[in-house]
């Protein structure tokens, strides 16, 4: 059993930053947790009823109220500001260049469309894979995410990527992997009876291997 609060390893250019914020929050909340719980237990022990004990008659202190309003406020807002930068990188500032693919979710599979040799989507040399996403390392993969039926959620745990696929909407997601290997594709949003089976594999190649794989696929799938 893994009781650890350490995140499993991650392999994208942004995942380090995401994990970093996670650890910052883990430290802050962890310390807060230990202090408050320790105080709670200490007070329970120290001030438990004993014969002759009388509680202090005390209605509070404005100074303390201000202190414990302002300190948490500053801390959480600071977390917010730090978070904003990473969020913008992941979700707002989509890289202009990279491998563009279309991922379409439908009950209960992920369809991936690649641009083919001409590098452009929507042309006749496009090819497809089912429940597999193949991509090169060190290059942004810019995904247009779609759904054909209900909402699914495109989840790449090792890349720290998650984005709902919404029918009727084209949503852009991007990531850049930093190490070749096989990773998980999951669906994180309940999408029907077969939701549990809606997984797949993300395969990251070196740039050269990806070239080779891509052209062989393009050949095979030529009509």
């Amino acid at each position: 059993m893994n009781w650890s609060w350490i995140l499993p390893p991650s392999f994208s250019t942004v995942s380090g930053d995401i994990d970093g914020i996670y650890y910052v929050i883990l430290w802050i909340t962890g310390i807060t947790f230990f202090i408050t719980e320790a105080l709670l237990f200490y007070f329970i022990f120290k001030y438990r009823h004993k014969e002759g004990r009388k509680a202090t008659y005390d209605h509070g202190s404005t100074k303390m109220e201000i202190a414990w309003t302002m300190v948490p406020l500053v801390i959480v807002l600071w977390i917010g500001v730090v978070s904003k930068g990473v969020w913008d990188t992941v979700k707002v500032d989509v890289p202009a260049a990279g491998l563009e693919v279309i991922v379409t979710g439908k009950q209960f599979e992920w369809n991936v469309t690649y641009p083919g040799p001409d590098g452009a989507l929507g042309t006749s040399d496009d090819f497809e894979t089912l429940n597999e996403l193949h991509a090169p390392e060190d290059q942004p993969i810019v995904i247009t995410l779609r759904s054909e039926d209900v909402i699914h959620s495109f989840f790449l745990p090792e890349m720290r990527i998650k984005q709902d696929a919404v029918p009727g909407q084209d949503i852009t997601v991007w990531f850049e992997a930093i190490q070749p290997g096989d990773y998980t594709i999951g669906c994180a949003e309940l999408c029907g009876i077969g939701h549990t089976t809606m997984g797949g594999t993300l395969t990251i190649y070196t740039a050269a291997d990806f070239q080779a794989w891509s052209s062989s696929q393009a050949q095979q799938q030529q009509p």
Partner: protein
Amino acid sequence: MSTIEQEMVHAAEGGHHDHHELPFIRKYIFSTDHKMIAKQFMFVSLFFLVIGGLLATMMRWQLGYPGEPMPGGMLLPDAMMAPTPNGAIMLPEFYNSLVTMHGTIMIFFAIMPLLVGLFGNLLIPLQIGAEDMAFPRLNMISFWLAVPAGILMLSSFAVEGGAAGAGWTSYAPLSVSGEWTGVYLGQQLWLASLTILGFSSLVGAVNYITTVINMRAPGMTWFRMPLATWALFVTAILILLAIPILAGALIMLLFDQTIGTGFFRPEVGGEPLLWQHLFWFFGHPEVYILILPAMGIVSEVISNRARKPIFGYHSMVLAIIGIGFLGWIVWGHHMFMSGMNPLLGTSFMISTMAIAVPSAIKTFNWLATIWKGDLHLDSPMLYALAFVSMFIIGGLSGIFMASTPVDIYIHDTYFIVAHIHYVLFGGSLFAIFAGITFWFPKMFGRMMNETLNKVHFGLTIVLYNLVFWPMHNLGLQGMMRRIYDFTQYEYLAPLQPMNQFISISVFLLVAAQSVYAFNFFWSIFRGEKASNNPWDSNTLEWTVPSPPPHGNFPEMPVVYRGPYEYSSPESDTDFYPQTKPPPSKPPVQELIPEPVTPTPEGF
């Protein structure tokens, strides 16, 4: 003289001494007495609490032992369980119904009616010194709308296609058509049931708000109101304004399903995200509906059992009000990954961060209340302190999810499930245990058995944490929620032992609740007889007999001070009831109006 006035004079002549017995049906079934309605809500919602627990147990069987035959599964119909020679195995569609109905029942039919229906009804009139609610008959209607809603909800298990299976959030378009889920009528019953229940809550909210504004006894100024009443008042306002949004959304979804309108159906241009916006615009205030009354109850119990004034009464009230306002502008934090404009995500993150602050303020004030107190660690206090301890965890985990980049990873994983249960089980439900135990003598005139309660407390707090703490870890390993068989994912398969551990703990946790159930029923009949004020409390409900008579107060109470004057040097005991006249000034007779026997309100 009009008929009403004639009735009135007649009633006044009868006076309040004439307490003729009501017929059984008026007293126990169609009662207009707020205390009886409170008890009715209590029994019905405790029943639903048990049902919700059983649903969870079945769910946990599947997660702990994926694909293995469930003990007793043969008793369930084939539409839920696939029979095999070794026993019956749960079907994924039934699992989806379980997830959906567990969440729905617990939130709408157990926790919410316990907090609002039970404690709202029981405490508001008693704590402000009113003879009943402003509209007793509306109050009765509120309960009798909730009952058919509950029956409809449960009946959906029995219909063709089974109960709703799109999650308690019923995201469109999954929830729009049985084409996607295999559930047709079940989903419609879900929608109809919640619409009716919404109406019930709404009627209740109108009643509570009117009562608090209009029916306070002389001297019961706003800032002398007990925090439980404050919290219930703000909760009622949230219900009043949030429920109609939900009702509108439910009806639109129902139309999409039945007559084929297009609101949430993308194939005809509808907007699935519109459902989410409407749902969470209601949904986030809803989660505060589920915690504010709990905070109020806990404040009462902690101050009383610490024999010390609540620390920072005014900031406690302001925090409640602050949550009431901020709660309206944070709904987008449920939708960070939904495809909503990511720039909006940032503003929702900031407002969500801000709303963590009032929660922090309240926590620190509870800590400071027990600091230098004289803590009587009997069972209500233990439950209340457990609330504080668990709420700290739930509040802190909220910060992880509020941070948009971190939420990318943990959204829709078991981390969320852990958060929900730390605030709703560790939070709301522990407060409910505290509240029921604390006000049990007032409701039934008898005390609950202290030893049994301590046993129940010990078992529950330990097992509860064994169940829900590891869910954080599951989430951090990437295990998604609402998943029928996580072992289908290779990277999740190693989580099997931990899931099994959780499931076993759940079975024990559920079993341990029988201690409370036994104690509850046993004490109603056999508990030690309670005095009017067994906890030496200051608030008004403890000045009247246990249980209070119809009309509550033999004469109109007059309030001289705030509710938390414990250990005041001005008093010779360590409490100082709100109604006790100050030593110097004799009671102001003129302030007390003639008591009049309550009669039902006219139209």
